[in-house]
């Protein structure tokens, strides 16, 4: 392995204030010195970052640097993983996410998540959307079908599937499945979306469609997207953050407006990464 120069006490250089004042970003999520350990192994350490409301923040970095792990802290999916230890502080709006008394069910309703591999449930298309809605207390039939239609229209899937709402969701193509998953998350009207490489398992055409969809959702939702595809990040993100593995644990190297990160990075590692020298 090629050695990397030691990064002595490097602090993330998050500069949320260098944008024009007209659209001054308003922080929605505040992450303070967050670390995550899987048993002995550290996934990432000491991440301090704030994510602005209504914007798309892209998280980039090499494989294994803890991007996915970072996302799962925000909606406390980490609870499902045994021997997983989170320390630090996450504040969403005014909610202390990591506090034990936090109602995770409500938290997760507020924060939708899309995974790398499209993962609709093995149910019909309709049931995929209806089932979480019902669980969250929506029982009325007409309201349900309106919500389903709205969500499917939002992701541009309505016309493609309206005639076969009761056929199995897993019979859809990969891109359609991913959009269905997004619709499923949107149906619960979350405030924020976490997306973990939502396009990387899709063929180029579906990937393009999903990407367009994400752009359309900007403004309405706060979106945090992990991607390997730097071109994509460049195309869609307002803000960007770069993670890197250092001494076996992920670190936040640099964060800021996408334009600055991609065109004028402050950190030599960022510069190397975005110029495609590595990765």
């Amino acid at each position, binding site marked *: 392995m090629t050695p990397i120069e030691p990064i002595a006490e490097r602090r993330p250089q998050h500069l949320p204030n260098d944008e024009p004042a007209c659209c001054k970003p308003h922080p929605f999520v505040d992450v303070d010195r967050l670390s995550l350990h899987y048993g002995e192994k550290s996934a990432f350490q000491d991440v301090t970052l704030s994510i602005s409301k209504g914007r798309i923040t892209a998280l980039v970095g090499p494989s294994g640097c803890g991007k996915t792990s970072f996302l799962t802290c925000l909606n406390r999916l980490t609870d499902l993983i045994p021997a997983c230890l989170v320390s630090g502080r996450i504040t969403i709006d005014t909610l202390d996410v990591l506090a034990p008394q936090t109602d*995770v069910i409500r938290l997760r309703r507020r924060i939708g998540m899309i995974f790398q591999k499209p*993962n609709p*449930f093995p149910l019909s298309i309709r049931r995929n959307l209806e*089932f979480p809605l019902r669980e969250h207390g929506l029982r009325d039939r007409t309201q349900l079908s309106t919500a389903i239609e709205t969500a499917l229209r939002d992701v541009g899937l309505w016309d493609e599937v309206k005639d076969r709402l009761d056929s199995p969701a897993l*019979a859809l193509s990969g891109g359609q499945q991913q959009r269905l998953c997004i619709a499923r998350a949107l149906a619960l009207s979350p405030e924020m979306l976490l997306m973990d490489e939502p396009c990387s398992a899709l063929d180029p055409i579906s990937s393009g469609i999903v990407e367009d969809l994400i752009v359309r959702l900007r403004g309405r939702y706060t979106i945090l997207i992990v991607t390997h595809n730097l071109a994509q990040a460049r195309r869609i993100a307002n803000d960007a953050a770069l993670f890197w593995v250092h001494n076996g644990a992920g670190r936040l190297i640099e964060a800021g407006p996408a334009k600055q990160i991609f065109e004028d990075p402050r950190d030599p590692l960022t510069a190397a990464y975005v110029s495609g020298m590595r990765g």
Partner: protein
Amino acid sequence: MVKTLSRSQNPREWLAFVLVWGAAAVVTATFCWLLGDILWHGLSRLSWTFLTAPPESAGRRGGIGPILVSTFLILGVCLAVSLPIGVGTAVLLAEFTLDQGLFGRMTRRSLDVLAGVPSIVFGLFGNAFFCKTLGLGFSILSGGLTLACMVLPILIRSTEEGFRAVPASYRLSAAALGLSRTTTLLHLLLPAAVPGLIVGLVLGVGRAIAETAALIFTSGYVDRMPESLLDSGRALSIHIFDLSMNVSGGDANAYGSALVLVVLLLLINGTASWLATVGLHRKIVTV
């Protein structure tokens, strides 16, 4: 791998080829012999009256009607008890990962031991516990409960496998949608784990229906048509044992009963693998 049968010049490959086919042939031959023996002697006994009539003259003549009924009742009790406990335990062990602490480990270990307990020891235990201490006497209930203890580990093991085979993405995405664990379990995981459950059921039922040693001291010897679960009832395998070991001239009916037992097993296995393929098929179609 099938089409790779290369005409390799390697003598070791040839030796292995001969060995593997030889082993399969030996096993098949032995089993055909055994099954053929049962079939040969048992087929002539098989008839509708044999299946329905009560045994006469200590089983030398007549049929096995009440014995079949008792066998099914014992099985029924066994499943009615072991299924909920088994599935519940499997769910706990497989899904509630946070329970992997001392309790989970101890449970798992004690189930491992339970899986190895000789059936005769189950018989001793069932007799002492269900028949005597709980006062159930020789009854279908005692027999069924004893068998339930016996098939539990098998059931739990394979149901757990079934749960583990369900992709983790279901759990993660359900949790990300803010669904409770109970909902996730009932609506998503349980249906997906059904094939594993079925495999466990087949293995368990197979073991239960074939059991002799544990039943001799618990469900008893009475070959009358049972009227309640507290009646004693003779299971098919005990009938076979008694006919071949204790009743002179019982061999013909022993063979007949053995054949019935084998056919029953075949039916159960067949149904289960059919169910499993249907389940699997459904999964694949919907997947």
